[in-house]
């Protein structure tokens, strides 16, 4: 894809956008132009101001200064409804779909095609959806309930929704964060077709290689300012990372040598069931030694969530034992686990890791609030909490205007740093990292990886669960591959070959003849486990 042929007015131009929030200059005279038929990559660290910029475009925020132009005409976008009317659509990282409604109904929601004043024209709607799906090569059943679809398909529904509303400008906020490599490939094909048809796409991502692959031009934002606009031909990952962070970034940290000690965590014949009572972890056994990182690789939904839940005390253990530091802790409460030396960076930070409405200070002592020095008897010591919090904020570089700001005011990456700051501090024997860098920018990833390695070198046993195979390969001393609730292989992290692990993840190493090495297995397989 090499940009647009004609040099007409840009489909979208944002000119001199400035937006101040209390204590933060979120956007500082940002210029951005997106041409018709262009895929424009937007890069920036967490909290660099990308979301603010897109919120302005989508009518969720009003800029203090600057103008938004569509096809050369200055416009004022008052609300998301207004944005949609003007042909701007946004596909959020967290999908805005109603799981119990069908694909067609989700698409119709808010943009109902009416036969008359009272009744929907479903026939016409279905016809249009089918037509759109065919044109862009989606394979999707309009009657299927959205909740039954895979994440990748749900995303396609979001894009279909935008196309149904005749969007000309599509903003995709980290569209690949939740996708498998195969799904990513498919979505890229769709995006290219959209661009060919003249749609303009703003593609926000943290994955530099993806942006390099899909974008025609790339704009990098740092600390609310545009650092520069470039093309994939002129740049590479290292340069983009440096533009984003403002210094040289090591994209892969050197894991160094490890010197594992005795086993800290022992899991023996562990069986766990999911919410619906289905057994999703089958008689799993492994151990993690002091001073080593055991990585768990696997396609999402192969029992990793349940495994982590059982080890951290958040889920009930059906059978088997969990031993921490020599004592049996099977079925112990999260509090008991915490006191036995477990720290846990949960995969779903919004659900478990933090309280959005609470200030950073309270969030930073969430697991230790009840004991000295943060409480004496029944009374909390606010001063001690604030002091500890301010120290952690500085040490872990959590970017916030104030330690008393609500957790919800932080960007995603800084929220994760907040959780990491809390869980990495103190005396930790076993550290469970569940998707520790999901949705984070390169600078934050480097930081968290370094911290994890430092913890390992300090003698902490680390269990790393990640859907990012590269992350597992980069950090792990040993790699356990999880497939359909079982650990199908444990390999040495230093000699492991990515393709072999990928194959094990996809097939469990059982039917090598059937599916291709990198494919995520047949849909029915992943569906039944999820």
């Amino acid at each position, binding site marked *: 894809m090499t940009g647009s042929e004609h040099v007409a007015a840009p489909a979208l131009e944002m000119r001199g956008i400035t937006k101040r929030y209390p204590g933060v*200059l979120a956007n500082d005279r940002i210029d951005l132009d997106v041409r018709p038929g262009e895929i424009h990559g937007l890069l920036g660290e967490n909290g660099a101001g990308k979301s603010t910029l897109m919120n302005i475009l989508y009518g969720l925020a009003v800029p203090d200064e600057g103008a938004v132009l569509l096809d050369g005409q200055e416009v004022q976008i008052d609300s998301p409804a207004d944005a949609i009317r003007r042909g701007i659509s946004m596909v959020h990282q967290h999908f805005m779909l109603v799981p119990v409604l069908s694909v067609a109904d989700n698409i119709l929601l808010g943009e109902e095609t009416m036969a008359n004043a009272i009744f929907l024209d479903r026939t016409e709607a279905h016809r249009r959806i089918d037509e759109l799906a065919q044109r862009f090569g989606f394979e999707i059943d309009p009657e299927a309930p959205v909740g039954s679809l895979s994440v990748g398909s749900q995303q396609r529904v979001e894009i279909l929704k935008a196309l149904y509303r005749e969007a000309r400008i599509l903003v995709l906020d980290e569209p690949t964060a939740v996708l498998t490599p195969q799904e990513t490939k498919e979505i890229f094909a769709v995006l290219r077709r959209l661009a060919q048809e003249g749609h303009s796409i703003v593609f926000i991502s943290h994955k530099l290689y993806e942006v390099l692959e899909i974008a025609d031009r790339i704009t990098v934002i740092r600390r609310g300012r545009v650092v520069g606009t470039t093309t994939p031909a002129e740049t590479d990952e290292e340069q983009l990372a440096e533009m984003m962070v*403002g210094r040289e970034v090591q994209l892969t940290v050197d894991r160094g040598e490890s010197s594992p000690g005795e086993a800290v965590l022992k899991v023996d014949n562990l069986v766990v069931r999911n919410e619906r009572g289905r057994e999703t972890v089958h008689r799993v056994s492994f151990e993690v030694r002091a001073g080593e990182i055991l990585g768990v690789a696997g396609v999402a939904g192969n029992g990793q969530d349940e495994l982590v839940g059982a080890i951290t005390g*958040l889920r009930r253990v059906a059978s088997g034992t969990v031993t921490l530091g020599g004592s049996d802790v099977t079925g112990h409460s999260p*509090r008991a686990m915490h006191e036995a030396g477990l720290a846990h960076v949960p995969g779903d930070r919004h659900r478990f*890791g933090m309280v959005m409405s609470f200030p950073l200070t309270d969030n930073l002592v969430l697991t230790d609030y009840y004991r000295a020095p943060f409480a004496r008897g029944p009374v909390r010591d606010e001063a001690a909490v604030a002091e500890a919090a301010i120290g952690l904020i500085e040490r872990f570089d959590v970017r916030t205007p104030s330690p008393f700001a609500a957790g919800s005011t932080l960007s995603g990456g800084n929220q994760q740093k907040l959780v990491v700051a809390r869980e990495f501090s103190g005396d930790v024997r076993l550290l469970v990292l569940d998707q520790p860098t999901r949705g984070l920018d390169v600078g934050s990833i480097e930081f968290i990886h370094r911290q994890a390695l430092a913890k390992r070198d300090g003698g902490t046993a680390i269990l790393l669960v990640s859907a990012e195979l590269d992350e597992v390969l980069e950090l792990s001393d040993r790699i356990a591959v999880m497939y359909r609730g079982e650990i199908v292989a444990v390999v040495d992290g230093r000699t492991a070959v990515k393709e072999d692990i990928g194959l094990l993840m996809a097939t469990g190493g059982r039917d090598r003849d059937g599916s291709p090495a990198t494919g995520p297995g047949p849909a029915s397989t992943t569906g039944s486990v999820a």
Partner: protein
Amino acid sequence: MTGPAGEPTNQPVPPAEEAEAVEAADGARAASALRRAWALVVVPLGAVILAMLVGSIVILASQVFIGVEIDPTLPLVAYWAMISGGLGSFNGIVETMVQATPLVLAGLAVGVGFKAGLFNIGAQGQFLMGALAAAYVGGQLRDQPALVAVSLAVAAGAFGGLVYGFIPGALKALTGAHEVVTTIMLNFVAISISSYFVSGPLRAPRSPFAQTLDVGNAELIVLFGRNGHVGIFFALLAVPIIWWLLWRAKLGFEIRTVGANPDAARFAGMRPRRLIALTMALCGMLAGLAGSGEILGRVGHLTAPYATNVGFDAITVALLGRANPVGILFSALLLGMMKAGAGQMQIQAGIPVEIVDVIQGLILLFLAAEIIVRRLFRIREARVGLEELATVTRSYGERSA
């Protein structure tokens, strides 16, 4: 503090700019505190103003129905009479305080629930059970020394409410039964229980009415005016105690965490189920205290049926006070003032006292339909105030943590 965005700077920063940034951060903090306070107050204020406006339309409309010539100043006359009735004299102020006392306590019973993500509609039932227990113990101890009689009767009322609040709390914790449903039902049960006891086993002998024995020495002493009983101080004390509990004590932190995010609470090692049961018991205790204050301080006995709306007015108070103890105090005083001044309004302006209920209902309506208030007064959406309410609505129909 580092740069304005709180980011560490790689380039050397001129000292002047650094100092400016620190100053800006300090200023921003003070400004944001002010903004937060304003954002908390502005919607309730708007709701009250709108309710008064619509109330004046009702006042004018009532003139049309009677067939009198419409006097456009009548709403002003009526409101002025109400305010001066409630605040214009020593007795008026005392009456306002007396009226506000049960509203503060029961308002806290609803407000503390909000903090834990619970919608306690059962303050009415908890109030009644507290009243029943206080009336019974007070009646039994009517000849004992006042100190013994009063403290035991008050304790009994608090305990009665506590038990009655614990029931829906435990039901939610154990079975996930939603407290909105259970507390509404338990309100009816409470009416029946109290009616049964008052007209049956506890009926005062030789009394022509269905009522309990007079509480005699268990009566709360009157300190000011005609009926300014000592219970006023229970309410005034409860506000700082509950504030301290919520914002300074460990338990309050746990209650707020469970309310804001039960999953995170579990992650943090708290026990959401236990906390839910405990919080509901605490709420019940507060409502029970309100009930005992009314019986021991104003009426002296329990009648059947006991006509009260305190438990429901408490919901308005808690919402108007944004579940904040201090806000609840002021809301209760406002409603208390309206009730205390209603009589004078009727006398001076000829407006029936029921208009107070109309206004109160309108306040609740506008609080519930917050968006109307925001639109009319052009208030921007601010994420402060009743985040807990979101949890309340979310939790409906979901399995509890």
